[in-house]
């Protein structure tokens, strides 16, 4: 999968990159929901399969960003715990570490603006729901 994100020089660490990814994913989500509101106003967009087609395209464009998010989280985890140390934790401890040290404050970070960019967001914004053909895959 191609690198989905271009980071400016000042975004260096895995934590900084992860924050930028959260912000870009959030922008993708907001664009999705903007289109979703249009679909709710015009139920035919849903019954005709047009919304399903949009969803399919959206997910295709979102996945590279999610892959980068996962890659960065794994990088952070490995910087904190060896695989053996990670294995030795119990389930509750892993969740605690994940929430506190790996995931970070996603809810806050995603709302921050970022200078990182992705062409996927522009591609998504170029899609007009009312111009989509109806996919045979529904």
């Amino acid at each position: 999968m191609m690198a989905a994100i271009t980071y400016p020089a000042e975004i260096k660490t895995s934590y900084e990159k992860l924050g930028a990814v959260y912000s870009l994913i959030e922008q993708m989500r907001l664009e999705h929901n903007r289109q979703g509101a249009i679909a709710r106003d015009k139920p035919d967009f849903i019954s005709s399969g047009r919304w399903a087609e949009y969803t399919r395209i959206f997910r295709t464009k979102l996945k590279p960003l999610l892959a980068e998010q996962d890659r960065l989280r794994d990088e952070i985890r490995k910087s904190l715990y060896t695989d053996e140390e990670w294995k030795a934790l119990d389930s509750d401890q892993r969740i605690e570490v994940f929430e506190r040290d790996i995931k970070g404050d996603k809810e806050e970070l995603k709302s921050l603006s970022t200078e990182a960019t992705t062409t996927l967001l522009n591609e998504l914004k170029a899609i007009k729901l009312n111009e989509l053909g109806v996919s045979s895959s529904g």
Partner: protein
Amino acid sequence: MANEVFTSSDWNNGIPQADPNNDLTITSSRVTFDTEARNIDAYFYRDMGAAHFDENFEHLLTVQVNGGSYGEVAFWMLSNTINDFKSILDGGEEALVCVGFNNSYIYLMELRNTGQFQDGYNYGQSTPAYITIERDESVGTYGTVYIYIYDDSDRTNLVDTLTVTLHEKVNFRYLFSNCSYNSGTTQVLSGFCENLDLQEVGEEVEKTSSESASGQDVVSAGYPGADLEGVETGGGEETVGQREITASEFGTGVDNAETTIARTDSEYGSGIESSIVSPVFFGEDTGLVTELSILTKDIYGFEAGEGEDILKELAGVGGKSTDMRLHSPTGRTGIQSGKTGMLSKGVNI
């Protein structure tokens, strides 16, 4: 596609395989857990057959956490072991799990012998979350699992997406709609899972296709006694296949009859060449809705590309849960198992 019927024989007739404290209440569409604790083995599952989940999938379900005290319960799980999911984790077995956790969280977990890998979101209590769980084997070395969380049933308003890049390719057998996490502690959680739709195409039937002397396709399906042959009828109406279905195939009390629907170009809109198509339905001849509600269907006599139109038409007249097999005259056979009108990627006519 169709929702899983939790009271069916596939699901042990709605009886949890383990429920020592009677925490689980099963209805046809919902599995409710009430103060399910972290010190019991409780679970409710369906045996789908070895390696059933061996490729991409997309499951739909609705879940809700109604609070508790740092409890942890799986709404949905795939595994190859029947046990509570802490035992599965501690035993080094693999599973994919959608978990209700700590009163308000939804978690996605991959369990394996090197620990668990997860993502989670604090969705809140007492509000249904409409989720889509997808495994995409084309992303990452071993595939990736996603949970898309929506707050509306049309899945138009995305709240968050959970993702775990998988560390191993595993085919799974058992599908759980409830599974406890037995850590020997007393915290509890309440909530439910409902409207689980696996969106699977139906069981493939053995089929052959050949060209008949009259230029019409002869399509044979691998049913006992199936004998399908194209027949040209008058007035431009075409019936491409018929099959005798005995009452024993559908249980008692079902007549063997047929209902024919004829449609015209105007009903299809443009782009479909066939002038009149007559899908033939076999079953109880008491009206389309009733008939569609109870039987497995073989539908013949339409052209390539029309599968979805037929499903929409059936949905429009109130067809309910059924299995349909759609046979095109060209010999391509699409198998649609589930709810009429719920189009899916499984349709390929």
